Protein backbone atom coordinates (compact mmCIF):
# COMPACT_ATOMS: atom_id res chain seq x y z
CA UNK A 1 0.00 0.00 0.00
CA UNK A 2 1.32 3.39 -0.91
CA UNK A 3 1.50 5.60 2.19
CA UNK A 4 1.04 8.71 0.08
CA UNK A 5 -2.47 7.52 -0.84
CA UNK A 6 -3.43 7.46 2.85
CA UNK A 7 -2.63 11.14 3.35
CA UNK A 8 -5.59 13.55 3.49
CA UNK A 9 -6.44 15.61 0.41
CA UNK A 10 -4.59 18.91 0.20
CA UNK A 11 -1.18 17.53 1.12
CA UNK A 12 1.61 17.09 -1.38
CA UNK A 13 5.17 15.98 -1.08
CA UNK A 14 7.90 18.61 -1.44
CA UNK A 15 11.25 17.00 -1.13
CA UNK A 16 11.47 15.36 2.27
CA UNK A 17 8.74 17.33 4.08
CA UNK A 18 5.02 17.46 3.50
CA UNK A 19 3.47 20.89 2.93
CA UNK A 20 -0.15 21.98 2.72
CA UNK A 21 -1.28 23.28 -0.66
CA UNK A 22 -1.52 27.08 -0.92
CA UNK A 23 -5.20 26.90 -1.79
CA UNK A 24 -5.96 25.04 1.45
CA UNK A 25 -3.72 27.00 3.82
CA UNK A 26 -5.34 29.34 6.35
CA UNK A 27 -4.67 32.87 5.19
CA UNK A 28 -3.48 35.13 7.97
CA UNK A 29 -3.74 38.80 8.66
CA UNK A 30 -1.52 40.78 10.99
CA UNK A 31 -2.88 43.78 12.87
CA UNK A 32 -0.61 46.40 14.40
CA UNK A 33 -2.14 48.17 17.40
CA UNK A 34 -1.24 50.43 20.28
CA UNK A 35 -2.64 49.98 23.76
CA UNK A 36 -3.23 53.39 25.39
CA UNK A 37 -3.62 53.07 29.14
CA UNK A 38 -2.90 54.89 32.37
CA UNK A 39 -0.19 52.42 33.39
CA UNK A 40 1.87 50.07 31.20
CA UNK A 41 0.13 46.69 30.96
CA UNK A 42 1.82 43.30 30.76
CA UNK A 43 1.31 41.22 27.63
CA UNK A 44 -0.51 38.39 29.40
CA UNK A 45 -3.01 40.82 30.96
CA UNK A 46 -3.88 42.66 27.76
CA UNK A 47 -3.89 39.45 25.73
CA UNK A 48 -6.31 37.75 28.13
CA UNK A 49 -8.60 40.80 28.23
CA UNK A 50 -8.66 41.13 24.45
CA UNK A 51 -9.28 37.40 23.92
CA UNK A 52 -12.16 37.41 26.42
CA UNK A 53 -13.68 40.48 24.81
CA UNK A 54 -13.43 39.03 21.30
CA UNK A 55 -15.05 35.82 22.58
CA UNK A 56 -17.82 37.87 24.19
CA UNK A 57 -18.41 39.78 20.94
CA UNK A 58 -18.28 36.87 18.55
CA UNK A 59 -19.56 33.97 20.63
CA UNK A 60 -18.27 30.42 20.87
CA UNK A 61 -19.35 29.37 17.38
CA UNK A 62 -17.45 32.10 15.57
CA UNK A 63 -14.57 32.70 17.98
CA UNK A 64 -11.44 33.21 15.89
CA UNK A 65 -7.89 32.19 16.81
CA UNK A 66 -6.03 35.33 17.82
CA UNK A 67 -2.37 35.25 18.73
CA UNK A 68 -0.01 37.98 19.91
CA UNK A 69 3.05 37.92 17.67
CA UNK A 70 4.92 40.61 19.58
CA UNK A 71 4.12 43.23 22.20
CA UNK A 72 6.19 46.01 23.77
CA UNK A 73 4.82 46.82 27.22
CA UNK A 74 6.72 50.14 27.43
CA UNK A 75 5.04 51.91 24.51
CA UNK A 76 2.05 49.57 24.28
CA UNK A 77 2.62 48.66 20.62
CA UNK A 78 1.99 45.15 19.46
CA UNK A 79 1.09 42.91 16.55
CA UNK A 80 -1.54 40.21 16.61
CA UNK A 81 -2.30 37.49 14.10
CA UNK A 82 -5.74 36.25 13.08
CA UNK A 83 -7.27 34.41 10.14
CA UNK A 84 -8.31 36.42 7.08
CA UNK A 85 -11.84 34.99 7.29
CA UNK A 86 -12.47 36.62 10.68
CA UNK A 87 -10.32 39.68 10.07
CA UNK A 88 -13.15 42.23 9.84
CA UNK A 89 -14.93 40.82 12.90
CA UNK A 90 -11.71 40.94 14.94
CA UNK A 91 -11.12 44.56 13.92
CA UNK A 92 -14.70 45.49 14.82
CA UNK A 93 -14.32 43.77 18.21
CA UNK A 94 -11.07 45.65 18.88
CA UNK A 95 -12.76 48.97 18.07
CA UNK A 96 -15.46 48.19 20.66
CA UNK A 97 -12.85 47.09 23.23
CA UNK A 98 -12.51 49.26 26.33
CA UNK A 99 -11.47 47.99 29.75
CA UNK A 100 -11.51 50.70 32.38
CA UNK A 101 -8.76 53.17 31.47
CA UNK A 102 -7.40 51.26 28.52
CA UNK A 103 -8.01 51.71 24.83
CA UNK A 104 -6.80 49.85 21.77
CA UNK A 105 -5.90 52.01 18.78
CA UNK A 106 -5.62 50.25 15.42
CA UNK A 107 -2.55 51.40 13.50
CA UNK A 108 -2.31 49.23 10.38
CA UNK A 109 -2.95 45.77 9.01
CA UNK A 110 -1.31 43.57 6.40
CA UNK A 111 -1.01 40.02 5.11
CA UNK A 112 2.68 39.87 5.99
CA UNK A 113 4.74 41.03 8.96
CA UNK A 114 7.28 42.67 6.69
CA UNK A 115 4.78 45.21 5.34
CA UNK A 116 3.62 46.39 8.79
Amino acid at each position, binding site marked *: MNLLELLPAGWKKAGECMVIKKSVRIKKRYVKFRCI*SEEPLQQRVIEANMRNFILRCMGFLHNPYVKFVRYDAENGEGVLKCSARHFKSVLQSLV*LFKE*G*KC*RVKLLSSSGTLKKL
Partner: protein
Amino acid sequence: MPFYDLHINFDWDGFCEEGYSAAYIPNLLLNSAKYDSSKVNIAFVGAGNNLSGRYDLVNFIDFRVDVPLLSKIRDKRGYVEMCFSDIRQHILDGKLEKVQFFSSVLKAYKIPYIFTSGASDIYSIKSPKELAFVGELLGFNQKDVLRSMSEFAGVIASRLEKSR
Protein backbone atom coordinates in the same frame (compact mmCIF):
# COMPACT_ATOMS: atom_id res chain seq x y z
CA MET B 1 -10.01 65.05 3.63
CA PRO B 2 -10.77 66.91 6.91
CA PHE B 3 -12.78 65.09 9.58
CA TYR B 4 -14.80 66.58 12.43
CA ASP B 5 -16.03 65.09 15.70
CA LEU B 6 -19.17 67.01 16.63
CA HIS B 7 -19.79 65.37 20.01
CA ILE B 8 -17.16 65.09 22.69
CA ASN B 9 -17.80 65.71 26.38
CA PHE B 10 -14.39 66.93 27.53
CA ASP B 11 -11.65 69.38 26.51
CA TRP B 12 -9.55 67.51 24.00
CA ASP B 13 -6.43 69.11 22.55
CA GLY B 14 -4.93 66.10 20.77
CA PHE B 15 -7.60 65.65 18.08
CA CYS B 16 -5.05 66.20 15.29
CA GLU B 17 -3.21 63.02 16.33
CA GLU B 18 -6.39 61.00 15.75
CA GLY B 19 -6.99 62.48 12.29
CA TYR B 20 -9.56 65.14 13.15
CA SER B 21 -9.41 68.78 12.03
CA ALA B 22 -11.65 69.89 14.89
CA ALA B 23 -13.68 68.48 17.79
CA TYR B 24 -16.60 70.24 19.47
CA ILE B 25 -18.35 70.10 22.83
CA PRO B 26 -22.05 70.31 21.95
CA ASN B 27 -24.99 72.12 23.45
CA LEU B 28 -27.42 69.38 24.49
CA LEU B 29 -31.01 70.56 23.98
CA LEU B 30 -32.46 68.91 27.10
CA ASN B 31 -34.77 70.37 29.81
CA SER B 32 -35.81 73.36 27.68
CA ALA B 33 -32.24 74.41 26.85
CA LYS B 34 -32.01 77.11 24.15
CA TYR B 35 -30.33 77.01 20.77
CA ASP B 36 -26.76 78.35 20.88
CA SER B 37 -25.44 79.41 17.47
CA SER B 38 -21.80 79.19 18.63
CA LYS B 39 -22.07 75.46 19.43
CA VAL B 40 -23.29 72.22 17.87
CA ASN B 41 -26.88 71.79 19.06
CA ILE B 42 -28.04 68.22 19.59
CA ALA B 43 -31.75 67.55 20.13
CA PHE B 44 -32.91 64.32 21.74
CA VAL B 45 -36.01 62.37 20.68
CA GLY B 46 -37.62 59.65 22.79
CA ALA B 47 -38.05 59.00 26.53
CA GLY B 48 -40.44 61.93 26.84
CA ASN B 49 -38.46 64.38 24.66
CA ASN B 50 -40.08 65.85 21.54
CA LEU B 51 -38.42 67.58 18.62
CA SER B 52 -39.15 71.30 18.56
CA GLY B 53 -37.34 74.48 17.59
CA ARG B 54 -33.94 74.69 15.92
CA TYR B 55 -31.28 71.98 16.05
CA ASP B 56 -28.18 70.79 14.20
CA LEU B 57 -28.22 67.08 15.04
CA VAL B 58 -30.96 64.77 16.29
CA ASN B 59 -30.16 61.88 18.60
CA PHE B 60 -32.76 59.11 18.76
CA ILE B 61 -32.59 57.68 22.29
CA ASP B 62 -32.70 53.86 22.18
CA PHE B 63 -32.60 54.02 18.34
CA ARG B 64 -36.39 53.99 18.20
CA VAL B 65 -37.64 54.21 14.60
CA ASP B 66 -40.10 57.03 13.88
CA VAL B 67 -40.46 57.26 10.09
CA PRO B 68 -42.60 60.46 9.91
CA LEU B 69 -40.15 62.24 12.20
CA LEU B 70 -37.16 60.99 10.22
CA SER B 71 -38.75 62.21 6.98
CA LYS B 72 -39.39 65.60 8.64
CA ILE B 73 -35.69 65.81 9.63
CA ARG B 74 -34.68 64.99 6.05
CA ASP B 75 -37.04 67.65 4.60
CA LYS B 76 -35.66 70.26 7.02
CA ARG B 77 -32.09 69.31 6.01
CA GLY B 78 -31.20 68.12 9.49
CA TYR B 79 -28.86 65.27 10.39
CA VAL B 80 -29.31 62.21 12.57
CA GLU B 81 -26.52 61.61 15.07
CA MET B 82 -25.02 58.11 15.26
CA CYS B 83 -23.14 58.36 18.54
CA PHE B 84 -20.49 55.65 19.02
CA SER B 85 -20.85 55.53 22.81
CA ASP B 86 -24.61 54.80 22.47
CA ILE B 87 -23.98 52.22 19.73
CA ARG B 88 -21.34 50.47 21.84
CA GLN B 89 -23.62 50.31 24.86
CA HIS B 90 -26.46 48.86 22.79
CA ILE B 91 -24.17 46.22 21.26
CA LEU B 92 -22.86 45.13 24.65
CA ASP B 93 -26.47 44.98 25.94
CA GLY B 94 -27.35 42.59 23.12
CA LYS B 95 -29.36 45.09 21.07
CA LEU B 96 -27.21 45.11 17.92
CA GLU B 97 -30.18 44.11 15.77
CA LYS B 98 -32.13 47.17 16.93
CA VAL B 99 -29.32 49.49 15.89
CA GLN B 100 -28.92 47.65 12.58
CA PHE B 101 -32.64 48.04 11.89
CA PHE B 102 -32.43 51.76 12.65
CA SER B 103 -29.47 52.03 10.25
CA SER B 104 -31.36 50.17 7.51
CA VAL B 105 -34.25 52.65 7.86
CA LEU B 106 -31.82 55.58 7.53
CA LYS B 107 -30.43 54.04 4.35
CA ALA B 108 -33.84 53.16 2.89
CA TYR B 109 -35.28 56.66 3.39
CA LYS B 110 -31.96 58.36 2.45
CA ILE B 111 -31.78 60.31 5.68
CA PRO B 112 -28.42 62.01 6.21
CA TYR B 113 -26.49 60.93 9.31
CA ILE B 114 -23.28 61.94 11.03
CA PHE B 115 -21.14 59.61 13.11
CA THR B 116 -19.74 61.04 16.35
CA SER B 117 -17.71 59.50 19.13
CA GLY B 118 -19.58 60.86 22.18
CA ALA B 119 -16.32 60.43 24.11
CA SER B 120 -16.14 61.38 27.79
CA ASP B 121 -12.41 60.80 28.23
CA ILE B 122 -9.24 60.14 26.24
CA TYR B 123 -9.85 56.37 26.41
CA SER B 124 -13.19 56.62 24.58
CA ILE B 125 -11.82 58.50 21.57
CA LYS B 126 -12.15 56.77 18.20
CA SER B 127 -10.45 57.74 14.95
CA PRO B 128 -12.51 58.20 11.75
CA LYS B 129 -11.32 54.85 10.37
CA GLU B 130 -12.37 53.06 13.56
CA LEU B 131 -15.84 54.65 13.39
CA ALA B 132 -16.03 53.51 9.76
CA PHE B 133 -15.47 49.91 10.91
CA VAL B 134 -18.34 50.25 13.36
CA GLY B 135 -20.52 51.76 10.63
CA GLU B 136 -19.77 48.76 8.42
CA LEU B 137 -20.96 46.48 11.24
CA LEU B 138 -24.29 48.34 11.15
CA GLY B 139 -24.68 47.98 7.39
CA PHE B 140 -23.22 51.24 6.12
CA ASN B 141 -20.44 51.62 3.58
CA GLN B 142 -17.07 52.74 5.03
CA LYS B 143 -16.88 55.50 2.40
CA ASP B 144 -20.31 56.83 3.37
CA VAL B 145 -19.41 56.89 7.07
CA LEU B 146 -16.19 58.80 6.36
CA ARG B 147 -18.11 61.14 4.06
CA SER B 148 -20.60 61.85 6.86
CA MET B 149 -17.78 62.86 9.23
CA SER B 150 -16.14 64.98 6.55
CA GLU B 151 -18.69 66.51 4.18
CA PHE B 152 -21.83 66.67 6.33
CA ALA B 153 -20.01 67.51 9.56
CA GLY B 154 -18.04 70.12 7.59
CA VAL B 155 -21.26 72.00 6.81
CA ILE B 156 -21.95 72.42 10.55
CA ALA B 157 -18.28 73.13 11.33
CA SER B 158 -18.08 75.89 8.70
CA ARG B 159 -21.22 77.53 10.15
CA LEU B 160 -19.61 77.51 13.60
CA GLU B 161 -16.39 79.05 12.26
CA LYS B 162 -18.36 81.85 10.56
CA SER B 163 -20.30 82.62 13.73
CA ARG B 164 -17.10 83.02 15.81
